[in-house]
């Protein structure tokens, strides 16, 4: 089988990941073992989309709970991956599949259809989507931009909703 040695985690990598994502050393090692157990093909990536471990960690980093001390560290540095804005961006990208920075009506419909059972007819779903866009859209372009998305969710406790406590 392929050389597993190349996929073993090296110290420098752990350090890099730590800096980038904010996970602790033990969390990274634990998640790495989880990654390898998911990675059935042993080629260092998950599934055909070739998510490697770095990508895996980066995604997971969005879900770290927000800690207070991070806010004060370095105002000029770019935000850590698990900041509120980044969490919202993650959610935004779940809708916005074509990455045009807008959630169009169709994209919204697609997601809605996935989230909902078969009992809702298309026209009902369509009206719900319309209502959603109508509520959020402030500049009248019939789609939701990221800023509008942020604004809509300002009252929602996103930090808590999009957080998992990772085991050490």
């Amino acid at each position, binding site marked *: 089988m392929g050389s597993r040695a190349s996929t073993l985690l090296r110290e420098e990598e752990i350090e890099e990941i730590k800096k980038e994502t904010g996970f602790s050393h033990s969390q990274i090692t634990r998640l790495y073992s989880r990654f390898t157990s998911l990675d059935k093909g042993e080629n260092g990536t998950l599934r055909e989309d070739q998510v490697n471990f770095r990508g895996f960690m980066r*995604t997971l980093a969005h879900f770290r709970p927000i800690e207070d001390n991070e806010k004060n560290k370095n105002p000029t540095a770019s935000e850590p991956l698990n900041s509120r804005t980044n969490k919202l961006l993650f959610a935004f990208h779940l809708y916005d599949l074509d990455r045009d920075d807008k959630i169009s009506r169709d994209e919204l419909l697609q997601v809605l259809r996935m989230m909902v059972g078969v009992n*809702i007819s298309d026209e009902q779903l369509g*009206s719900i989507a319309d209502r959603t866009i109508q509520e*959020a859209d402030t500049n009248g372009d019939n789609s939701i931009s990221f800023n509008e998305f942020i604004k809509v969710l300002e009252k929602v406790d996103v930090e808590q909703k999009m957080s998992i406590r990772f*085991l050490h």
Partner: protein
Amino acid sequence: MDVGITRRGVLFIILTALSLLHGLRGEVLPQPNGGVTIIPHINPEDDPQASLEPTKGNSALFKLNYPRIQIPLEITLWMLLASFAKIGFNMYHKITIWVPETCLLITLGLIVGSIMYFANEEPPAVHTNTVFFLYMLPPIVLESGYFIPIRHLFENIGTVVWFALVGTLWNSFGIGISLFAICQIDAFGVHDISLQENLLFASIISAVDPVAMLNLFEDVSVNEQLCIVVLGESIFSDVVTVVLYNMFNFQAKKEVVKATDVLLGIAEFLEVVFGGLIFGIVFGFVAAFTTRFTSKVREIEPLFIFMFSYLAYLIAELFSMSSVTAIVMCAITMKYYVEENVSQRSCTTLRHVIKMLASISETLIFFFLGIATITTEHEWNWGYILFTLLFAFVWRGLGVLVLTLIMNPFRTIPFTFQDQFALAYCGLRGAISFALAFTLPDFIGRKNLFVTTTIALILVTVFIQGITMRPLIGLINIRKTNRNLYTINAEIHCRLMDHTVAGIEDICGQYGHFYWKDKFMRFNDRILRKILIRDRRAESSILALYKKLELQNAMLILDVVSGDISAAPSIISLYEEKKSSSKPNKLLAVEVKKMHDILSKNMYKIRQQAVSFTSKHALPNDSQPREIVIRRHNSIRRSLQSHGFHRAGVSTIHKYHSLPAGKSLGSKLSPGRRSHADVQENMSEVVYPSRTPSPGPAPLSSPLREVPSVHDRGKSGRTRHGMSRTSSSYSDSHVPAPRRHSKSSTSDKNSAGNFREPHHKAEEPEQQQRPLSPPTAWAAEPKDNVTQHPLLRQPQWNPKKM
């Protein structure tokens, strides 16, 4: 005005009952210690009614034999009175929110007590040690144990145990020691109370009973973490209190406390609690195992549960272990397995009876609290009592603060100050404190003082804190559960985020926050379920479970709707709605509300979301079964459709069938409709006694019948205010389709049609109830359809089938 009249009627009844009780004579004064129960004692005082004439010789025809039935009669009348009162209270939803029910019970007790006082009666004190601990406490604790949402409890187990255990200990010792310090001050004249006695007293009053607040919390949608902590704390603090009570009781006899005594005390404490735990778990497993074999004796299934729980309690008492822990653990352990093994009816019976018994016990206790307030000998000592009140508040507040401080770093969602305030403020004392105080042994010199103080504390906390809690909660802007979001956007996006987080958790291999739970679930699936759950083939167990869930669900929905039969729209009006709704969409508030309804009904829920907290006075609200049911129904329907059934026919048949099984639309269409009970009857008969080779199909077809009833029932229930766009899309195919379909002649459809015919025939005036003939052709399908659907994998109910 209808309500007004009934309310007046109820009040009238209450007053009559009161005057009836006033007429009762021959009250009891038992010796309040030792194992002596009630000794009837005739009090031949002023008494018109029950002036008993044991045969005086003249009227041999008309005799009154009061002493014989005295005790049961009194208890029955008390219970009846309290229950009338409950009916009265619950007439106004607002009252039960503003004023906790315990307040009202105590008030009633106070009223009756004052009547008795003025009539110079002695109250029947059923609070001997034996009666309380052996008869009144177990139901209350069993109920708390049985209805805890187990998953949430274990997710927060650290916090709960921390608050309960350490909090109660902190409270007891804090209050005890500070009271002892107060006692040293001669001015109050309580110099003779020793440290042990103070500690004993403190342990009594640190039993918190905040469950009354849960009603309020839920109404205000306080965040769930707080609710679960409140619930868990009340249970476990009972445990701790009883243990401490027994310990200190024992210690109080001694004059001097040595260091070894303290260590011994700690060791004893741990031993007692763990012993209770073990007993509870053992009995829980035995009970679960027994129910595996009870399929032939369905009627007495609940009996096993009760007997085993009670047995756990008694055996733990036998070995001087913590019986409260035992019964709670027994309930927690066996609930999951038992509810899978027993029939639907036994399940319902079980729940209802548990609630009922607990309600009885609690009512009686609070009632007597009210009475005892008036009628016992009080020893009032301003200093002691005021300081007790002060210390109770102070120590609880301090306790919550300190404990939260220590606990918060370990929690994902830390407690804010508002949470802490709410937690501290909702420390009502309740039934257990009173009962423990009342059953203090007599060698404690100042027993009356203790009783008085306890009563004072309970009254103050229940009334003042109970009533002011609600405005305060509103004021402090506590973190709400986010369940009632006002924009569609927020709702959709939040649900999406929840799905995402659930997915990520699955990827990381964690459920919620606990690695151990994952391990336990695996152990459970592999080993425990095989032993404890009745042996069934995989498919049928899923389907039977599915059926049971639907039945539960359908019953819930029907219960809701049955109150509104007249308000449910008829088919004709639905038809018209559809026409009118084809106008272009104007987004009114009403429409938004409907959208919310649609979304909340139809969006798949995440497993963590459905929480069911139960107050002592209501059955759990299981909205998750509803979700599962709808989801599975969809998946099965989709798979059926893919097997060649005419799509419109199937879906309309489904919709159509929702009607006859219940009441709302059926009432308009046919005079004779099948009652819900019959449906249930048929259901259980089909599934349970028949170990036919294809148990699959029968339950499979029944879902088609029941679940749409769930759907439309839910919808018709909600759309009673007029707009019914949701049902409208089905209405056009309602009438013509069934006729078309009943003539179908392929073997599959025929058998299916056979099955379905009784239903739509019930719709029409002629009403036959053809026995359900499970179509054999369907035997093959469930296996394929059911197991392949990922939606059917529910960690909560199903073992993972991989």
